[in-house]
């Protein structure tokens, strides 16, 4: 045993006490407090210290173990089991180090101090090591967990993206699937958003296994279902509007455009009318800087279509887009002007107002039922220079002679006014649109034939539709450019998106950029297209194309769909 000095005795008691306690814990008699497992390092070290004074080297350590009592040996065995392998090895190495320390210390001087110090040092370093071990373990665990979490996140994202691929694969693409459970609008919109985001940064966000075409097909079917469009129509719109703009367009189509009226300058001025209507209880404003006759009605206490001012013909309820073709045509006073598809008369009455009731305005419409409304509107608005007639537009060139200006607001698919008439979304198939296009081409050709190219003040045709599809707009104008001697001129409109001179595989005349397109989501107007043409000569031969080819084309495409009354006109064209 150690020395018999007072300090020595104290140490011994201390150590024994702690050692006993630890031994008791290890033996299982005392419960362990705290999480950190009791190591018998202290025990061993105390013993070791005692023996270290005497002995040197590792062998002595082992001997120490062996020399110790059975409990201690048991304890050591337990401790070995208790500690992990790593810790064991560390412990052993540290113990070895301490052995050296011990030996050094013991070499140096007093046992007590050295022992104590070394003991404390060893225990502290041991504890640090333990804590270090634990913290290392903890950190490793953390690192592993975070890595796993990240992988999981990525996996989830992938899975989420893969999720909305599944419906496409299961049910096939295009057309309506009636077995499918209808998904909620929010769900569809969320999926649309995520598809769009993938498409916007395709390289980075895509799933490698899924081709781009599948994403696009999925987007198409989601948009069709979410907003109620025919898939063929959605496909056409997606061709025109890139990326997320289609969604903006469809969203804008869901809500109606603000109600606008046009002041009838034949009877009143905008200022006076605004005052009168405000006195009636309407909340209104001028439409914008670009028009002197437009007023937008925000809210009204009286029905806008039934005020005495309306009945007296002081204004016309008309969408602001419809001002465009009339201002583009810009008829002058004392001209002969034709409106080929005039009912119900909003544009005709505007033309008459621009002409100040001079000259001649012929307002024509094919449908008799709509003529009544046209006549009523013209009378109400105080138009005195009009003739209303009931011709098929295709017959007009022969029937009525030549005009200075012609306005053709052609019958169209109505894709620009979906906000007013939602049935368009579900009813305009590709065949419908193709049939309308044929009619539009014929009508525009006839309109050009009605114009006198040698007119001193005019010679203009304005073609307008309430559609945003390229088939009905630029394609029709381009077709006619090859049939007649006309050229596209500037509309003179203050704003609007320029028409397309190129679209997918089509190449139109470069002047097509002079035409104007209006969109609900950009201008807050109804979708519209306006193009102004100037007739260069009265010849019915086109400028640049081969004559024989032309004749063949006309024979092939136009003769089929004709009524008999048209044959003479055909011959005229062929000549």
């Amino acid at each position, binding site marked *: 045993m150690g020395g018999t000095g007072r300090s020595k005795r104290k140490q011994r008691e201390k150590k024994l006490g702690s050692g006993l306690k630890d031994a008791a814990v290890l033996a299982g008699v005392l419960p362990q407090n705290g999480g950190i497992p009791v190591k018998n390092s202290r025990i061993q070290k105390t013993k070791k210290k005692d023996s270290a004074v005497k002995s040197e080297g590792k062998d002595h350590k082992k001997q120490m173990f062996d020399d110790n009592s059975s409990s201690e040996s048991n304890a050591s065995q337990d401790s070995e089991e208790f500690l992990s392998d790593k810790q064991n090895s560390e412990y052993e190495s540290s113990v070895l180090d301490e052995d050296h320390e011990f030996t050094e210390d013991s070499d140096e001087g007093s046992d007590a101090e050295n022992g104590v110090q070394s003991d404390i040092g060893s225990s502290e370093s041991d504890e640090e090591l333990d804590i270090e071990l634990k913290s290392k373990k903890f950190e490793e665990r953390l690192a592993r967990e975070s890595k796993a979490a990240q992988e999981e996140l990525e996996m989830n994202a992938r899975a989420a993206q893969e999720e909305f691929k599944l419906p496409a694969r299961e049910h096939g693409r295009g057309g309506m699937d009636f077995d499918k459970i209808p998904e909620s609008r929010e769900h569809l919109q969320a999926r649309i958003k995520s598809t769009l985001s993938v498409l916007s940064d395709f390289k980075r966000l895509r799933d490698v296994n899924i081709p781009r075409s599948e994403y696009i097909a999925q987007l198409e079917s989601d948009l069709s279902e979410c907003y109620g469009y025919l898939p063929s129509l959605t496909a056409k719109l997606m061709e025109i509007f890139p990326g997320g703009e289609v969604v903006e367009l469809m969203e804008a189509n869901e809500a109606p455009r603000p109600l606008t009226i046009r002041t009838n300058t034949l009877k009143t001025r905008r200022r006076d009318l605004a005052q*009168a209507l405000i006195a009636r209880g309407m909340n209104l404003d001028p439409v914008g800087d670009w028009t002197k006759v437009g007023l937008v009605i925000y809210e009204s206490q009286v029905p806008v*279509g*039934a005020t*005495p*001012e309306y*009945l*007296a013909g*002081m204004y016309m309820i008309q969408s602001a887009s419809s001002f465009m073709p009339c201002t583009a045509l810009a008829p002058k006073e004392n001209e*002969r002007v034709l409106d080929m598809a005039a009912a119900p008369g909003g544009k005709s009455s505007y033309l008459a107002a621009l002409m100040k009731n001079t000259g*001649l305005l*012929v307002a024509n419409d094919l449908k*008799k039922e709509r*003529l*009544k*409304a*046209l*006549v*009523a509107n*013209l*009378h*109400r608005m*105080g138009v*005195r*220079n*009009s*003739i*209303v*007639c*009931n*011709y098929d537009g295709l017959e007009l060139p022969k*029937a*009525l*002679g030549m005009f200075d200006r012609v306005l053709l607001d052609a019958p169209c698919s109505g894709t620009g006014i979906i906000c007013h008439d939602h049935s368009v979304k579900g009813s305009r198939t590709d065949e419908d649109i193709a049939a309308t296009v044929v009619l539009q081409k014929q009508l525009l050709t006839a309109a050009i034939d009605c114009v006198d190219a040698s007119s001193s003040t005019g010679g203009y045709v304005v073609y307008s539709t309430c559609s945003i599809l390229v088939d009905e707009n630029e394609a029709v104008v381009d077709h006619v450019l090859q049939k007649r001697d006309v050229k596209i001129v500037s509309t003179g409109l203050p704003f609007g998106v320029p028409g397309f001179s190129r679209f997918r595989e089509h190449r139109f005349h470069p002047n097509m950029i002079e035409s104007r397109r209006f969109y609900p989501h950009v201008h807050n107007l109804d979708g519209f297209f306006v193009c102004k043409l100037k007739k260069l000569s009265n010849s019915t031969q086109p400028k640049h194309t081969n004559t024989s080819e032309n004749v063949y084309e006309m024979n092939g495409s136009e003769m089929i769909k004709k009524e008999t009354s048209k044959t003479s006109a055909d011959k005229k064209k062929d000549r």
Partner: protein
Amino acid sequence: LFVFTLLLFRMKSDFELQLFSVKFAVFRLQKDRVYYVRESIMRAAISVARDKLAALGVCIGKFTHGGNFHLHITAVDIMGEYAKYKVWVRPSSEMSFLYGNHVLKAGLGRITEGTPQSQGVVVYNMNDVPLGFGVTARSAFDSRKSNPTDIVVLNQADIGVYLRNEDHNPASAL
């Protein structure tokens, strides 16, 4: 082509018909309807086939089988220019007149001096907007003395017709 210099106006016997022969204004008859239209326009309208012409210029009215002439509301602007006797209606009963009701004394704002009884008049609102045609139930002098609820002008035609009779607009000849 028919040019009218004399027409029977049951309602408006006091109209000076010479007023109508303004230099280049002409009447055109189309299916018993009379249209008031500038001569140049009328000439242009000749080329329009008879069965395809719906209207031209301003429809004044139409002849009935009995030979009467019914003046149509669409002529109210033109008539207003030439009418000798006018009645102005107060805002309070303006809407009532537009619904087809007669004008009461309470709603009478102004009346041309010396209007006799049973006289065809043009009815205006206080902003000089023409509202329609009427016939006086009593003379201007008498209506000053009448009770507020007495009818002073009988409603013959008013512009509310544009909303009431949208389908049966008589101005269109087709």
